[in-house]
């Protein structure tokens, strides 16, 4: 049968199952009523040029099944998400679901613009976030959401007070500062060329003055606007009694600036405005790259938090009402529909169904919950309608307590980060003291205040700006860039150093060493096995086992014929059944088969899935959670580096041990609750270990937050990403090993750089203290020393990674 594309969404289906409609001379095909509706709506609004813009892009079919519109007008919702502008307008940030291409953005904006009462609607194509401003007197938010839904997209609100918004703001701020710094640097450079040319060929003082003033004008905004961040950092350092990099950069740049002003006015000595601007620009760019990699990770987090429900369905006297999560009190009866996420802890009172608790326990098989069983927030109800009694209110529920714990740990700086600046901190302190002593010495013994000041400042100028200031940022910059290229995101440069020092690696099992989802390892087929039928059957279920089989079929087979099944029924925690053209299809575990009188053998360590057609067994699948590729080699390599590798898991001993044996981990801690994992991390700390923890679930987050370096898997699909310091985007265990190698190599480069600048300083600084500094020599020495540091840092790139 020929396949035709749907006129709206462009997905292809058999002609026979399509809704056809004559339209002038041609026939239109639609895959569903939703698409048909959207098409006519767009046509009548004169927006059908959308399809020209769309080209060949395929959309999601416009299926409408929401009935939660009224929640957008609730008071609680308003307080949480809607901002009122100064002009009395309402403003909200939405995430639009279903945007595939720029034509989608165009259509959404266009339709919103045409809606009365909408004052502004801008959609960001890159992250699908929309800002909508509207007049509350003319239109309600529910109407706006309805408009978006009517054209086949969905929108849900997101809280602009979240991390991401803050990260975005810092990013913009940094960007503006960098623009000014780069502008200043580029212009000062060509003026400086004229200046340096003057040294060799001779220049009249009156021209020198002009160049000096021009440099002064350019350097001033760079130092005080772009360099403001360093002054701020130095101030915080001063308040906490730490001499940090910021202190060094700020004091060095400021003193060089003051000295240059003095030199400019007194015609005494050379100006160093170009050094001031260069040092600020370089260090600032390094800091900006840190901010950028931080934002990446936060982006992923927000859409997850945004999909957490803010309302629950309460049942009171057999009447259902939507209530904001904050207003639920203990003892309320809450109803859960299939697919809904639990946000409040409780105990089941009515009904039974399976729950996906993988984000809490790491266990990927669903758990059957019956009357009297506890329901934990963060789990997802998979297959049936359930009522349960709230035993805690929202703020005390597991999900929220974890979230608040995470927020706390993000704002609180890890203690090790302060250590990262220690080495350069000592140098800064020593240089500053030396400069002071020089100044005091010259003043006391020489008697001339002016000369004492110049000599003191020249100590800082020759020592500070280049080599020492760039030793750490330059190397970590290259290290971070190198790591990012290999899909390893370090959120901050300091983490490279901490990771290099670590001597213990704690690994979570599910999702970190293993893939965290069952996949087919063995298959037996019998008579009557039809892949198309099985595919249609397993596609109806979201159960991890069904999805594992669906993935397996998709990998091995050709495209599947779409089959419309009838009487689809999900039996909780057992399987699915359906009929097709009179045939009875059943798919599920052994108990399900035995209940239907189908004989099957059950002896295996793996999870089993049977498929039966008309009461006869057609196929038998064995599934297990496979170990990630290369895990064994990576762990062996890490152990060879002298790092102790430990496995922490919430799973039971037997399966933990078998995975540990397979990858070669000797130390296994099984049956751990989230708190237990964290307690173990603390115990490792007490043994004076620097701990790196890798994990991916909510159950790992507390432990992640406690460890010195937390590594999360990119698809951790969790708050885990937000507490982590390093994110492995490709999720390969090999990346763990590579992260170690990069960090150790970078740390070595940092040490080399610091060692070199120490050497340079021990030679150059005494000259400066003695008052022998010839400006030309100083300028040459400074540029050369920084070139050495840059070159040495670049050598990190030679590290061979597969």
């Amino acid at each position, binding site marked *: 049968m020929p396949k035709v594309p749907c006129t709206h969404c462009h997905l292809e289906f058999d002609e026979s199952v399509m809704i056809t409609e004559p339209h002038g001379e041609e026939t239109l095909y639609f895959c569903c009523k939703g698409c048909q509706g959207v098409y006519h709506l767009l046509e009548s609004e004169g927006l059908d040029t959308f399809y020209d813009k769309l080209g060949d892009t395929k959309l999601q079919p416009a299926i409408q099944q929401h009935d939660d519109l009224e929640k957008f007008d609730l008071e609680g919702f308003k307080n949480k998400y809607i901002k009122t502008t100064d002009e009395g307008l309402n403003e909200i940030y939405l995430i639009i679901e279903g945007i595939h291409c720029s034509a989608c953005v165009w259509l959404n904006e266009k339709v919103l613009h045409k809606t009365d009462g909408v004052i502004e609607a801008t959609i960001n194509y*890159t992250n699908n976030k929309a800002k909508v401003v509207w007049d509350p007197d003319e239109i309600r938010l529910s109407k706006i959401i309805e408009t978006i839904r009517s054209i086949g997209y969905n929108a849900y609100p997101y809280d602009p007070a979240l991390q991401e918004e803050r990260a975005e703001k810092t990013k913009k701020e940094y960007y503006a500062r960098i623009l000014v710094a780069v502008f200043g640097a580029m212009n000062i450079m060509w003026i400086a060329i004229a200046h340096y040319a003057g040294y060799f060929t001779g220049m009249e003082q009156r021209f020198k003055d002009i160049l000096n003033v021009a440099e002064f004008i350019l350097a001033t905004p760079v130092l005080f606007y772009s360099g403001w961040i360093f002054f701020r950092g130095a101030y915080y350092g001063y308040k906490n009694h730490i001499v940090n990099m910021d202190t060094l950069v700020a004091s060095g740049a400021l003193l060089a600036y003051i000295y240059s002003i003095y030199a400019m006015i007194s015609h005494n000595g050379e100006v160093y405005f170009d050094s001031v601007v260069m040092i600020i620009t370089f260090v600032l760019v390094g800091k900006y790259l840190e901010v950028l990699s931080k934002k990446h990770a936060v982006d992923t987090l927000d859409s997850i938090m945004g999909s957490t429900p803010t309302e629950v369905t309460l049942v009171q006297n057999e009447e259902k009402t939507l209530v904001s999560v904050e207003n639920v009190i203990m003892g309320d009866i809450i109803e859960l529909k299939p697919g809904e996420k639990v946000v409040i802890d409780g105990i089941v009172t009515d009904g039974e169904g399976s729950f996906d608790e993988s984000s809490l326990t790491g266990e990927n098989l669903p758990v059957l919950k019956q009357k009297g069983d506890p329901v934990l927030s963060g789990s997802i109800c998979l297959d049936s309608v359930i009522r349960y009694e709230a035993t805690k209110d929202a703020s005390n529920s597991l999900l929220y307590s974890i979230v608040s714990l995470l927020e706390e740990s993000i704002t609180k700086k890890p203690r090790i980060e302060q250590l990262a600046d220690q080495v350069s901190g000592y140098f800064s302190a020593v240089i500053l003291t030396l400069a002071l002593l020089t100044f005091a010495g010259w003043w006391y013994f020489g008697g001339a205040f002016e000369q004492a000041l110049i000599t003191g400042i020249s100590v800082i100028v020759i020592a500070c700006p280049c080599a020492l200031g760039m030793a750490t940022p330059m190397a970590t910059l290259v290290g971070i860039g190198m790591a990012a290229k290999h899909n390893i995101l370090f959120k901050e440069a300091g983490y490279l150093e901490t990771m290099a020092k670590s001597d213990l690696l704690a690994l979570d099992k599910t999702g970190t060493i293993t893939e965290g989802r069952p996949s087919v390892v063995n298959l037996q087929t019998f008579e009557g096995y039809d892949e198309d039928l099985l595919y249609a059957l397993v596609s109806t279920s979201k159960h991890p086992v069904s999805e594992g089989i669906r993935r397996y079929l998709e990998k091995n087979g050709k495209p599947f014929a779409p089959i419309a099944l009838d009487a689809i029924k999900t039996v909780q925690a057992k399987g699915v059944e359906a009929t097709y053209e009179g045939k009875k299809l059943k798919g599920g575990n052994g108990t399900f088969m035995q209940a239907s009188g189908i004989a099957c053998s059950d002896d295996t360590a793996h999870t089993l899935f049977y498929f039966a057609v008309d009461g006869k067994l057609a196929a038998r699948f064995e599934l297990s959670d496979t170990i990630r590729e290369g895990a064994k080699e990576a762990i062996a390599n890490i152990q060879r580096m002298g790092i102790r590798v430990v496995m922490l898991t919430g799973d039971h001993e037997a399966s933990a041990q078998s995975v540990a044996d397979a990858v070669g981990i000797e130390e296994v801690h099984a049956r751990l609750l989230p708190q237990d994992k964290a307690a173990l991390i603390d115990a490792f700390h007490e043994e004076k270990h620097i701990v790196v923890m890798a994990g991916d679930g909510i159950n790992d987050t507390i432990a992640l937050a406690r460890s010195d370096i937390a590594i999360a898997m990119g698809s951790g699909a969790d708050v885990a990403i937000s507490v982590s310091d390093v994110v492995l985007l490709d999720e390969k265990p090999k990346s763990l090993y590579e992260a170690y190698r990069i960090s150790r190599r970078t740390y070595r480069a940092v040490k080399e750089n610091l060692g070199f600048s120490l050497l340079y300083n021990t030679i150059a600084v005494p000259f400066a203290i003695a008052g022998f500094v010839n400006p030309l020599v100083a300028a040459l020495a400074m540029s050369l020393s920084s070139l050495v540091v840059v070159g040495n840092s670049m050598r990190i790139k030679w590290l061979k990674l597969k």
Partner: protein
Amino acid sequence: MSENIVILMLGISTFLGALGLAALLWGLKTGQFDDQSKFIDGARFDNEEELRDAVMMEEKRKAQKKKKEKKDAYRPAD
């Protein structure tokens, strides 16, 4: 060569550069660089209609403002 020429050259070129910088900062502040693909798409799709749309939105905003001023100005007689 007189100082004035050097001053003029330096001053004008730096000033022109500064103008560009200011424009860039303004664009950044008003969020024109928030979405990289939008600019490119604008070149592909925008035509007269988009311009009319933009004008329509401007007018909407103005009308709303006017309405609000009217509302604020209205004082019930005591």
